[in-house]
């Protein structure tokens, strides 16, 4: 992007155009001829991965907006409409929500890479600071987007985060009211968040352009931390870096797609499948995982204003990194002392993240405070001091010398990674059985036909489950997001259209106004949604002493239980997504006599699995209350399992399609990753094994 272009147009039309707008030359210089150090490792592909992820987020986001309604009464349902009715809507939404998580995952690797290899040092200070700005913008965008589905977590995240500004002395309240556009988080808040969530990604794009521009002026850093000295030290961006970036991007997509297709709700919170309720705060309110370390820092400080200042300082301090690190050596590889402290810092951040999700009390709080203190000490004391006292190892004399010498180190890294993974997997399998007996017992993990990568619903079970719902649950619980036609749709209970129409006709649906301006009741049709048993939420609450029976449409995704460490890590690999149904089954069968030492409040019932044990719902099921036509056992346990399976389908009607498509995508990506790998190896062959290094025919025949 600097100096005269290396692009020489040949075609006269191109020449004419280039003389007027040299954009092709700009592209050529930036992405084709641009020299990149030949010794970059895979960590340097995360910049490209992030660019692709940004594009994916923008494209899926633009599409989601076509179906989303920014209104407090309609937002939640419009997202569910997207998930249920819009063609591939579920896919696009899961891509977007998991894409956000992947974006942060990738940016953290990108940032830690920059820290380890000293990519912020002269002359890359501005490049680094632009990066910090992009990170801040990402955090804002992620937060704003999380509010839009208008679930419980959305609402309370909006409340808590905006309230951070109330810590500002004197003007705090005014600023918060201004942010809300009202006296509490409400419709004006939602609409402005929506607007800004659409705007900020494009601001990010602008800063990414600046980031890349600055990068192309100063050139890339590299694992050796020495600047290129000769042409030999670099290779042209295309095809070398392009192919490497693409290969690693496709490999990264495997992880991204695993989450999207197999554990799409793993990174979210069950509570966000409960519509926003301004009068009830969820018991455990935690931000998305990528904010957890900062959330921990906020909670570590016992003073409101100081907590908020610490939170922002922990991010802003990154911008001063180029001046806090006093060492002249860039790469951590040649700094024995720094290396140790770097990994301590990484562990500090991870632990803070873990603590951010824990209740702020007792030992957790003390640990959080120590780690918070260390976080700041690392920047303010450790980095400046070790830079002055440490004796660095000798630097390689050039990038080429480094590139041709480091094969041993690479093997060591791979071995360490494999060992770490093995330990992790081993740890999770061994502790799976050793769950501590807590206050509330964990629901037993049942086998479900729809679990795992090839899971499908058991049609007969769904039909029985629907029967249980209709004959028992429907008296109190609505299923308002479902339409009668869903019963006959593929991937569901497999009723015929005629059967579904008959179910619909039994229901009374409110319609109107008619020509006389009056509302009237008529028999339901396939296109109608299941009518609610109550005219409104107040009526439902009134009928049940204030405890309105929740709607069951997404209940299987809105309920979960604490999985514990390290089981929750293992769940990613086993694709455990059945916490909701396990919990519901356990709850329906968990009624017991009240233990003598338990004081049960009036009007409630004792349930082993219900958090707090006192549940308003009386035991709904009993052996024999529903008569099955297919000879299945007519027991409470069987009813509970069947209705849970039915509710899983109700919450995730495209589960089968998701897993089916997921398998195809995974196979495709594996093939593409393999092909990309061989193409990449082929193209890089001459660079990695220069002819003068491997003379004679011997090596060539072994590689052929």
């Amino acid at each position: 992007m600097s100096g005269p272009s290396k692009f020489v147009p040949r075609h006269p039309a191109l020449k004419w155009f280039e003389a007027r707008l040299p954009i092709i030359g700009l592209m050529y210089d930036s992405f084709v001829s641009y020299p990149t150090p030949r010794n970059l490792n895979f960590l340097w592909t995360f910049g490209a991965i992030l660019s692709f992820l940004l594009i994916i987020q923008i494209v899926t986001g633009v599409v989601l907006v076509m179906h989303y309604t920014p209104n407090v009464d309609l937002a939640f349902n419009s997202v569910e409409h997207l998930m249920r009715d819009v063609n591939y809507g579920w896919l696009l939404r899961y891509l977007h929500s998991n894409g956000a998580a992947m974006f942060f995952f990738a940016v953290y690797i990108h940032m830690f890479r920059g820290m380890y290899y000293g990519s912020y040092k002269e002359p890359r200070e501005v490049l680094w600071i632009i990066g910090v700005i992009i990170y801040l913008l990402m955090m804002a965008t992620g937060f704003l987007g999380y509010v839009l589905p208008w679930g419980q977590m959305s609402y309370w995240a909006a409340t808590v985060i905006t309230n951070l500004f109330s810590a500002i002395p004197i003007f705090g309240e005014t600023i918060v009211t201004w942010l809300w556009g009202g006296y509490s988080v409400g419709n004006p808040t939602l609409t402005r968040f929506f607007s800004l969530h659409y705007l900020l990604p494009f601001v990010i794009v602008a800063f990414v352009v600046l980031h890349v521009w600055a990068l192309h002026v100063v050139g890339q850093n590299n694992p050796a931390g020495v600047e290129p000295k000769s042409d030999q030290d670099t290779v042209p961006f295309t095809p070398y870096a392009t192919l490497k970036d693409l290969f690693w991007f496709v490999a990264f997509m495997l992880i991204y797609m695993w989450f999207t297709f197999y554990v799409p709700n793993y990174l979210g919170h069950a509570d966000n499948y409960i519509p926003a309720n301004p009068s009830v705060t969820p018991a455990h309110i935690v931000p998305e995982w990528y904010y957890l370390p900062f959330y921990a820092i906020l909670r570590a400080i016992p003073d409101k204003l100081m907590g908020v200042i610490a939170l922002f300082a922990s991010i802003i301090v990154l911008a001063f990194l180029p001046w806090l690190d006093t060492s002249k050596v860039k790469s951590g590889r040649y700094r024995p002392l720094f290396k140790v402290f770097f990994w301590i810092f990484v562990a500090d951040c991870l632990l803070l993240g873990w603590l951010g999700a824990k209740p702020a009390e007792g030992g957790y709080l003390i640990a959080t405070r120590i780690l918070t203190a260390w976080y700041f000490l690392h920047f303010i004391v450790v980095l400046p001091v070790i830079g002055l006292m440490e004796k660095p190892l000798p630097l390689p004399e050039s990038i080429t010398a480094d590139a041709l010498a480091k094969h041993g180190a690479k093997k060591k890294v791979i071995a360490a990674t494999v060992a770490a993974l093995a330990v992790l997997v081993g740890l999770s399998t061994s502790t799976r059985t050793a769950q501590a007996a807590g206050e509330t017992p964990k629901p037993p993990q049942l086998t479900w036909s729809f679990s795992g990568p090839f899971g499908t619903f058991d049609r007969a079970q769904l039909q029985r489950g629907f029967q249980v719902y209709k004959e028992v649950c429907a008296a109190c619980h609505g299923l308002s997001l479902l339409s009668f036609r869903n019963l006959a749709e593929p991937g569901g209970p497999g009723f015929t259209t005629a059967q579904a129409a008959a179910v619909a006709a039994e229901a009374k649906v409110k319609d109107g106004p008619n020509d006389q301006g009056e509302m009237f009741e008529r028999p339901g049709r396939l296109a109608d949604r299941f009518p609610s048993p109550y005219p409104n939420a107040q009526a439902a609450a009134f009928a049940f002493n204030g405890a309105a029976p929740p709607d069951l449409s997404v209940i299987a995704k809105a309920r979960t239980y604490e999985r514990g460490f390290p089981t929750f890590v293992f769940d990613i690999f086993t694709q455990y997504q059945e916490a909701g149904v396990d919990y519901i089954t356990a709850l329906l069968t968990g009624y017991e006599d009240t233990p003598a030492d338990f004081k049960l409040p009036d009007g409630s019932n004792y349930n082993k699995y219900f958090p707090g044990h006192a549940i308003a719902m009386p035991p709904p099921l009993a052996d024999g209350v529903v008569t099955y036509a297919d000879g299945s056992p007519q027991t409470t346990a069987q009813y509970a399992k069947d209705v849970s399976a039915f509710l899983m389908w109700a919450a995730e009607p495209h589960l089968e399609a998701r897993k089916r498509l997921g398998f195809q995508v995974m196979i495709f990506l594996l093939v593409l990753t393999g092909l990309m790998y061989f193409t990449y190896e082929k193209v890089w062959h001459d660079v990695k094994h220069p002819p003068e290094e491997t003379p004679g025919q011997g090596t060539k025949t072994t590689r052929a």
Partner: protein
Amino acid sequence: MTNPSLRAEPTRRDFLFIATGAVGAIGVAATMVPLIAQMNPDASTIAAGAPIEVDLTPIAEGQIIKVTWRGKPIFISHRTKQEIEQAQSVKLSALPDPQSDQDRVKAGHDQWLVVIGICTHLGCIPISKSGEYNGWFCPCHGSVYDTSGRIRQGPAPANLPLPPYRFVSDTKIEIG
């Protein structure tokens, strides 16, 4: 590229590149499918477009009512004797889009004309019982339709289209 191993086996190398490129291109193309499909009518819209029933009893002779099916206005005209005669007596050769009145109504139900009330020019809704032919007149660019909903004058190229419908009984039709 002086490496002899690369020159010695050009086909293998080329095949690898082409295969990788092709598989990548397939991936990009497949990605377009959901992005395009999501703009088609969604399941709830399709379900809401199911057939509707209309009771004809309240429609007096000479009256035209408008019902909505799939978001489109449907004109149901209970034609008078005179209107039917007018429609039937026209010479087909005089029509820009020749179609007999019999082809535009259901046999035995000459008095009922059911048309989609959207001008075939550019989609405006014509005004009933107006225009030179006493049928419909489109205010947008002046297309004139007769009592059978056929185009007689103006820029519209075709007659008002007929929706799919059937008589459930003598006094009830199902549109769709």
